[in-house]
């Protein structure tokens, strides 16, 4: 099955099933035809570093040529924004929108999007819509979806307007209710009465909503009955008087898709609370569009015609840590063996700011490069956690340096390590603290550490909103901390 006239038609589902080698050559052709590297060389994100590395952008004609280009990471993007005007980032004639990352450390990353970029997002959005179909769940056209978003300048703030207009332009039937999570409590009742078919949210917020609904079920059921006296609402009200009510007792979604943090720890809980088989999406602000898993849940399909994905294996990451300055080597995703873990590196064909060998700092695991049972041929991965200095407690995120600055205030603290595990589905942070000398009152010392940890806004808000389990402190003795194979102390340890 060859792309027609050498081009894949916009929104063509056939591209999801092309043999992998054809997808790879399609991506390679795009690499050349879009002159993405040449355009990127104009951006302040790449210009100086590439010049220093002797990169000849015009000579990049294949993946092999691309491999000679140095990696770029989020710190480079922050640095480019600090040292150059934002406009210097841009490689296209026009910018339509700017989107931002959280900037919880005060250094938000800003990413320009042009109309061509929005078109790529639209294309990938069409693919994402098709992902859950084909399985046991019936998802007919024209469904009502309920989506949760984050406030501007996060990328999802525009999703109500942009998605509605996109669907209108594409002639796709469907209805949308979009709630910012800061407004969700007020607006949820109406949204539930509208009986949406599809739910799109962050996993931790969805579960917090489920908990809140169960806690408030009698009041909520009474309110729904008051607003609409129907048999199901009467039943829900009566049930709420005698048993714990779950969301699924009040509203029956056909399906839900989740993004913003790995779904795996929440999957079972969401299934139990909402009564559907959840799907997972993967996206990040710097990248365009959405990747996701199909109904078989055998990993996230990475669109191989739209990105050139590589993996820096864990062993290489450790080598890099031991010998800073030595660039680690990457494996192309389409040649990576199943089970390989490492930092995901992406090159895309964006217009306003292409990503060229961009290290996502997401630790991923390769699931398979073989065709999936759903018929799609795009390689599949699993996203595990961060590999950089960002601590990821679900959607509660902060820099390890922020935490370090807080803990510097604790007297007698020799070393510390943050252990992250799960308490049920909620992320739990445990600070393992090693004192210089045994404190006279260990409990007060631990309380002081806890106080410092909670002075971080992200942690305090996460705990207050019950998105994470309360942080714990453990006192340890020398030698109990976890280290890399080279003996370096790991400040953050994820217990997957």
């Amino acid at each position, binding site marked *: 099955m060859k792309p027609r006239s050498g081009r894949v038609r916009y929104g063509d589902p056939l591209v999801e099933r092309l043999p992998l080698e054809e997808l790879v050559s399609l991506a390679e052709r795009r690499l050349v035809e879009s002159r993405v590297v040449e355009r990127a060389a104009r951006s302040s994100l790449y210009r100086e570093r590439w010049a220093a590395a002797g990169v000849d952008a015009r000579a990049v004609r294949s993946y092999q040529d691309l491999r000679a280009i140095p990696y770029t990471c989020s710190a480079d993007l922050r640095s480019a924004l600090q040292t150059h005007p934002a406009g210097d980032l841009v490689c296209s004639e026009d910018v339509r929108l700017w989107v931002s990352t959280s900037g919880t450390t005060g250094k938000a990353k800003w990413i320009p999007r042009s109309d061509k970029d929005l*078109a790529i997002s639209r294309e990938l959005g069409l693919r994402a819509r098709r992902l859950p179909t084909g399985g046991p769940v019936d998802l007919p056209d024209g469904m009502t979806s309920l989506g949760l*978003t984050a*406030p*501007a300048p996060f990328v999802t703030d525009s999703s109500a307007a942009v998605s509605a207009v996109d669907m209108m332009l594409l002639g796709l039937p469907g209805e949308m209710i979009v709630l910012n999570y800061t407004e969700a409590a007020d607006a949820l009742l109406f949204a539930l009465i509208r*009986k949406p078919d599809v739910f799109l949210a962050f996993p931790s917020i969805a579960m917090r909503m489920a908990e809140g609904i169960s806690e408030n079920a009698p009041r909520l059921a009474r309110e729904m009955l008051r607003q609409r006296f129907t048999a199901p609402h009467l039943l829900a009200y009566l049930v709420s008087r005698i048993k714990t009510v779950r969301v699924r007792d009040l509203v029956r979604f056909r399906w839900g898709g989740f993004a913003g943090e790995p779904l795996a720890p929440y999957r079972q809980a969401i299934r139990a609370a909402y009564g559907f088989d959840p799907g997972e999406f993967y996206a990040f602000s710097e990248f365009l569009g959405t990747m996701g898993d199909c109904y078989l849940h055998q990993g996230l399909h990475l669109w191989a015609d739209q990105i050139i994905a590589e993996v820096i294996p864990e062993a290489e990451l450790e080598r890099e840590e031991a010998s800073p300055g030595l660039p680690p080597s990457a494996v192309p995703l389409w040649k990576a063996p199943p089970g390989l873990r490492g930092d995901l590196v992406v090159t895309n064909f964006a217009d306003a700011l292409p990503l060229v060998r961009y290290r996502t700092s997401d630790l991923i695991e390769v699931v398979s490069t073989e065709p999936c049972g759903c018929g799609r041929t795009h390689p599949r991965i699993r996203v595990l956690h961060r590999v950089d200095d960002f601590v990821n407690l679900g959607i509660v995120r902060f820099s390890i340096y922020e935490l370090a600055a807080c803990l510097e205030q604790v007297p007698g603290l020799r070393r510390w390590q943050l252990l992250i595990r799960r308490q049920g589905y909620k992320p739990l942070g445990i600070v393992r603290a090693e004192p210089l000398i045994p404190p006279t009152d260990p409990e007060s010392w631990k309380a002081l550490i806890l106080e410092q940890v909670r002075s971080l806004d992200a942690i305090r808000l996460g705990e207050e909103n019950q998105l994470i389990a309360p942080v714990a402190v453990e006192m340890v003795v020398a030698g109990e901390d976890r280290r890399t194979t080279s003996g370096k102390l790991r400040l953050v340890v994820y217990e997957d």
Partner: protein
Amino acid sequence: MEDTLAIRLDPSDAESLPLGRLLQLAERRLVEGNVLERASRSKLYSRRWRRSGVRPERVHDLAQLQALPYTDADDWLAAQGSGSISGFVAERARLWVSSRGKTRKWVPLGDVDLRRMMGLALRLSAMIGVGPRERILAITEPAPRIGNCVPYFLAMADMVAGGLHLEMISGSVTMLGRNNWPEFAAERRPQVLWGHSDDVRALADALCAAGKDPAALYPHLRVLLCFGAPLEPARADLQRLFGVNPLSCYLSAELPYLQAECAPGTGVHLWLDVTIPEIIPTSELCREKSAPGYVPMALFIADAPEGTAGEYVVTTFGQSLPLIRYRSGDRVQLVGKGACVCGRTHPRVRFLGRITAESGA
């Protein structure tokens, strides 16, 4: 795909038609667009109209429109809160938006509504003098409020039909102090700042608290567009803070039609090609207040003498839920009916505040 994107946005250019032609246009749209028949499918109107013996098919002109009963926010809340939501919608919705607050009015918008809003967003940008390749800093409200999506509608409208190549940077009050959007936006040198007047004020306060002068931070600002509340008495303050004369934009979830002051700032133009505005004069409001059950008389804006003050009543040709003689609860004063210095012929009003708040006071 590119062909699909090149859509024709409604409304087409009707900004300078003579007043009489605009009224004819509105009347034709009301009748030929089957607006009342469509509205009668919504329980917002159907029950009350049945009780009042209203026969939508018999309304053929503006005079007959005035025989229909008013609708107000209480009717809205009662209708959206009872029975099926599907019965609330006149025609298939694409997107739901809402008003602010705990007791929200939910408004369904269909594709025709979206196209109309996008067209009006482009009209607004021309009216306030937005030029090619200019940059807009939009303080967006959280979804589902109408103030969330309207700035993005302008960006999308420009993308598919405008050709101005506008650039948009958005921020929110929620993220003030948690993200550097005000400073980043300053670097992009926006010419337009657009937001709810409370949010614009919050931005100014946050900047001042951080020792920054808003006017100095945004030296290229030419247009400050505020919606959500009458500009007076904050106008002078905002002008001092941002160094530009703010313009007032009337925007509500029920009436998301971006009716705004033109650059000379001589009152908010009410778009007669997409709405039929009326005014219940203050004297009638007083009679209603003193004699409960009394139904006050309204005047079409085109028939009201300049200077008339009263409650703004509006009829629209909306797709998913048309407004039919909707009492907005907003007090207006008719400023002018003659052609404006900007060349537009649509009547101008000044918004004076909420009727309910005033009564309460």
